[in-house]
């Protein structure tokens, strides 16, 4: 009896994974959930010393890794006032404009407590105050509604309490950066379980990307992969002067630039044409700001590619993604691994 006969539903999986908080350094809950799903498609799963989850599909051919970070941006309690108010500091890059008047959870040692990010009503503001968005020195969280708010300690994690939903083929949810990519890897693993391939495939769900941490690199090091595809998100439907507009719903963006291996990228583009999977091109002239930058430099070097899922409202409480873009990314990943090319050494950029 197979328990994997039923195909995973992309939307449900994404909503499930985005509902589990996993701030940088605190990814256990979300990685445990991913491991639960992934064990059906893996010969083994393990955690690296830096916490990243590595799932392996054994093979006799070359080793390839798919990397997606599983962490998300969050806050920590920086200051506690005697009257029951907190100040926060960001774990990762927030836009203060998006935080005001949100419900939050404070994750204390004794469970989670309610908080709300307060804001002065217009009646009580001065004209001068109304011109600026408050920064972390002025944003505050009200926790007075909890009889036991004194359980809160400096350093407790704080997450915004919003719930994802689907609308017209898109999903609005927190932490789609980068759970969408995690879902694309899971879907690729599902596909590869049905396809023929000789490659040994490493599915790596890594930690601490949002703070530039060591998660993905530790996965690349332990797996000793020859090929590595990093899956992350990029700004969709935004005009960025001098660059092509990456469109939502038009397929994943394949990066070109020095952090990727040119021949490997060409291979992925060929796969895209061969299997009619829509892709877009994203030029990245220097560092990408993703895990690709570090994965490339692991051990004797990794032949890297970066595939980005178009996402709108990055680092907002609700981010937006097209379900189809995630599914196209999964196909592109799976087929890229089934027919890996021979690439001579020294043919990076």
């Amino acid at each position: 009896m197979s328990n994997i006969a039923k195909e995973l539903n992309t939307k449900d999986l994404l909503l499930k994974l985005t509902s589990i908080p996993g701030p940088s350094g605190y990814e256990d809950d979300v990685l445990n959930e991913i491991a639960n799903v992934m064990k059906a498609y893996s010969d083994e799963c393990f955690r690296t010393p830096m916490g990243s989850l590595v799932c392996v599909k054994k093979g006799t051919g070359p080793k390839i890794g798919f990397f997606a970070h599983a962490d998300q941006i969050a806050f920590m309690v920086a200051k506690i006032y005697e009257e029951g108010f907190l100040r926060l500091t960001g774990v990762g890059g927030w836009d203060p404009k998006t935080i005001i008047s949100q419900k939050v959870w404070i994750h204390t040692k004794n469970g989670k407590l309610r908080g709300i990010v307060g804001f002065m009503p217009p009646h009580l503001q001065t004209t001068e105050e109304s011109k600026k968005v408050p920064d972390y020195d002025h944003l505050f969280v009200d926790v007075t509604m909890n009889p036991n708010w004194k359980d809160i300690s400096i350093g407790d994690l704080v997450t915004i309490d919003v719930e994802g939903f689907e609308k017209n083929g898109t999903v609005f949810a927190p932490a789609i950066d980068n759970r969408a990519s995690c879902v694309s890897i899971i879907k690729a693993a599902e596909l590869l379980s049905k396809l023929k391939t000789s490659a040994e495939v490493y599915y790596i769900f890594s930690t601490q990307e949002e703070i530039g941490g060591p998660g993905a690199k530790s996965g690349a090091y332990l797996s000793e992969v020859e090929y590595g595809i990093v899956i992350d998100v990029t700004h969709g439907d935004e005009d960025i002067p001098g660059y092509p507009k990456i469109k939502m719903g038009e397929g994943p963006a394949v990066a070109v630039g020095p952090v990727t291996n040119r021949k490997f990228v060409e291979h992925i583009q060929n796969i895209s044409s061969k299997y009619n999977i829509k892709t877009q091109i994203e030029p990245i002239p220097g560092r990408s700001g993703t895990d690709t930058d570090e994965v490339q430099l692991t051990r004797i070097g990794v032949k890297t590619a970066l595939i980005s899922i178009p996402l709108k409202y990055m680092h907002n409480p609700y981010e937006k993604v097209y379900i189809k873009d995630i599914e196209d990314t999964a196909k592109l990943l799976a087929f890229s691994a089934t027919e890996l090319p021979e690439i001579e050494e020294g043919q990076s950029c």
Partner: protein
Amino acid sequence: MLKYLKELTEIKGVSGYEDDLREYIKEKIKDKIDEIYTDRMGNLIALKKGKGGKKILLDAHMDEVGFMVTNINEDGTLSFAPVGGVDPRVVIGKKVQIGKDVTGVIGYKAVHIQKDGMMNTPKYSELKIDIGAKSKQEAEKQVKIGDMVAFTTQYEETEEFIIAKALDDRCGCSILMDLIEADIQSENDIYFAFTVQEETGLRGPAIIAEQLNVDLAIAVETTTSGDDPELEKQLWSTHLGDGPAITFMHSGYVVHQKIFEKLVEIAQKNNIPFQYKMRTVGGTNARRYALTNIPAGVVSVPARYIHSPISMINKKDYENTLKLLEQFVKEA
């Protein structure tokens, strides 16, 4: 007590779209009062008869602050403008309801690709609602210009506090409903006016003086507090937990002296905790009643963070406001 507040706050009713609130309230109270009708503007007016005493009107406004769809853009997003006073800094990253049943999100360009001035207060003209529509045509199938846009915050209650949207002034509506429920025996005729369009300029009650011959009115409100770390104590307006706020003056109206003094006297006599509202900013329907020759007073439940998607009151303040008004309609 508090039987209706959850549902009252979760119903969407931005100024001009109070219909669902009115239907809800009417349904719940119609068998518990002597007369009830809806007037030409949409105010819901109910009467509980006394025995020839004074005619007292209690006012609570049904409407909440929110937005209206002002344009459907080529890319399928919606432009919108505030209805009532909503600071543009509290709206980004919120889920909203458009019309009866369309859900959307007010998103903002990623922080990574913003230019200089990212700490400036955004303008409404820069903000858009995203309903996941890929084009204007697709959006037009779901929404239309003029549709109401409301926040979607779910009600929560803890031991001492209530967290919800639209406590200003569903809290007042709830108190009026609780007073009706309490079936107060009084010499006085009590009119309960659930009014429309307070947030867009105290408009609903403007037509009440022509319809009813009342001796005085009390605006039952939800008011600002400011008791948080961003404001020095001497600038606080009220403090949660200290009881109902009694107003002596606010924007455009000095409260009728006799009514103000009577409210204070009744609170003191009955040992009901109360506080004076310490800031004179903001206005209430009391001003509108005064402008139409009805002397009026104001009693409010103090609330934090009103005019945002999420506000908070202390349940004891609610209870003491209810007590004060109950005594007032008996003794005034």
